[in-house]
């Protein structure tokens, strides 16, 4: 018995398993073919071609690490990366704090109000970057825009929000936050609802106010979610390029040329793609490193207990 049982089960499993394999590959075929052609192959090509002086018009020539070297010594690339980090600092903290506050509010009001809050904060996320850009360009208009009309009321003269290098990046950060707020708020709401009520009841008995409850209960309990949002926010924000592409094209004087836009503009303007590919790969490596560093730093801090 003891010996024959596994043998019998193996015999029973075997034919169906072989059948499964062929069926599995029939079901997987479309996805595997598509991902291979349109994701994996381009990824391999990107690595491969970054070692060549490749263009649509001439024969490619192997140049080794030259493209990477060119990128690394190009001040414009580093300027774009720094600008990207600056943009992250303008968007991610604001977005985290705002969505935390909205989420706190949404979890403390009646269900109906909470639904209205959730839906309206999320609606901007479904709007395209192009439409957001068009709307904000008009809000920022120099001579007749809404924003200048508002600051005129308090006596501040008109500003060229998108035309002034001092303001342009911040002017793009606003729609970026607006578009991205919905998802992080909803994720935070979900995380807040997961915290057991008993924690708050106990704190209330001890006389803890809202601020103390937030600092000692809510934030530590949400540590993982906050970390997740910080890393995804960082990665998403530094890769933003649709808003500056449509709103300013990277100007004025490159003030809004974020890393991905820098690469995209280079690709459009330069017949040789090696440089752009090397820059994209380097950025990928830099981003991966920075996000893992953020992850390490925040994770190592003993926030809980």
């Amino acid at each position, binding site marked *: 018995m003891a010996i024959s049982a596994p043998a019998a089960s193996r015999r029973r499993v075997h034919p169906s398993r072989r059948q499964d394999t062929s069926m599995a590959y029939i079901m997987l075929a479309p996805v595997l073919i*598509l991902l291979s052609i349109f994701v994996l192959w381009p990824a391999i090509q990107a690595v491969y071609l970054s070692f060549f002086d490749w263009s649509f018009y001439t024969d490619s020539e192997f140049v080794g690490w030259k493209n990477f070297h060119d990128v690394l010594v190009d001040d414009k690339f580093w300027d774009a990366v720094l600008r990207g980090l600056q943009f992250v600092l303008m968007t991610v903290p604001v977005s985290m704090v705002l969505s935390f506050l909205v989420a706190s509010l949404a979890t403390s009001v009646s269900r109906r109000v909470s639904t209205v809050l959730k839906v309206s904060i999320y609606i901007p996320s*479904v709007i*395209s970057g192009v439409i957001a850009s068009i709307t904000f360009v008009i809000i920022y208009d120099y001579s007749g825009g809404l924003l200048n009309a508002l600051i005129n009321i308090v006596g501040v003269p008109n500003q060229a929000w998108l035309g002034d290098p001092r303001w342009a990046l911040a002017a793009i950060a606003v729609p970026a936050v607006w578009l991205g707020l919905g998802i992080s708020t909803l994720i935070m709401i979900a995380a807040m609802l997961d915290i057991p009520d008993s924690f708050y009841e106990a704190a209330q008995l001890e006389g803890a106010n809202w601020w103390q409850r937030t600092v000692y209960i809510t934030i530590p309990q949400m540590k993982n979610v906050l970390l997740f949002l910080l890393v995804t926010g960082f990665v998403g924000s530094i890769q933003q390029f649709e808003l500056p592409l449509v709103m300013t094209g990277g100007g004025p004087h490159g003030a809004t040329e974020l890393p991905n836009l820098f690469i995209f503009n280079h690709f459009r303007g330069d017949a040789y793609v090696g440089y752009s590919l090397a820059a994209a790969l380097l950025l990928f490596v830099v981003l991966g490193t920075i996000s893992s560093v953020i992850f390490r730093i925040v994770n190592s801090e003993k926030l809980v207990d």
Partner: protein
Amino acid sequence: MAVLTETAAPTTAPADRRTARRRRMLQPRWMLIVALKALVSLAIVALALFPLAWMIISGFKIRTEVVSTPFQFFPEVWRWQNYTAILSDTAFLRTLAITGFGAVIFTAGSIAVNSMAAYAFARLEFAGKRYVWPLVLMTMFIPGMTILLTSFIVVTDLHMLDTLAVLIIPGMATAAHIFFVRQFYLNIPSSLEEAAVMDGCGRWGVYLRIFLPLSKAPFVVVGITSFMAYWNNFVWPVMTITSPELFQVQQYLAAFRGERASELGLLMAGSACAALPIIVLFLVFQRQIIANIKMAGLK
């Protein structure tokens, strides 16, 4: 924290707590807080929706009113002319129709191919699964910009440039969607499947008769996400489409802004019309979408 919960547990009985809460609700301070919360909620709703309201209102203005000194929030006279003009513009209507057509095919294709793969990964044992699954997952972490340029080279080599196929096919298989549907399939009890097999149902039968009918929720999420991604796509159409007959809606709007910059009221009306289908779609399915985001946040 542990100390706090211990002290809390034995004290208040539920009935006491309820009366305490009721007493608190009658205090003026409590009512003030409720009023304050309502006010702040209203302010948040207004701020979140303001740019969209602004866009829609601007669509009712004549061109000199959209940006004007002195500034005016509402139009002098509400005019439908921008909306009627943009909606009777054949080029714009064709753009909406062709984008909608592409989006529907893209969405259907995305649901079909990704859910089949999800089923295979969730429920079938097959040779090489250990290697294929991580490979598929890995594609989720390849940044768009890294492969944007080489994807362009690939579609050029495949002679797909300036066709609807270049918009529909490359993005159809999506690891995130496979992952999402697979997660859902993993939670379907295997007893259902076994019962069907006992009754003589084959593997395809199980998939078609048991899994597909149960898949409405994940399909809605994948479908809406795909539709939105297609509808809102801008960079890829700009790179690959050159014939005006195939222009996608975002591309059209961006080009409109470039070429007819002075017709701001018309541009705003067009943007509002382009945003509306997506907003309506979201409102119809908001419950499922919001639930899905909650799930994403927890994992």
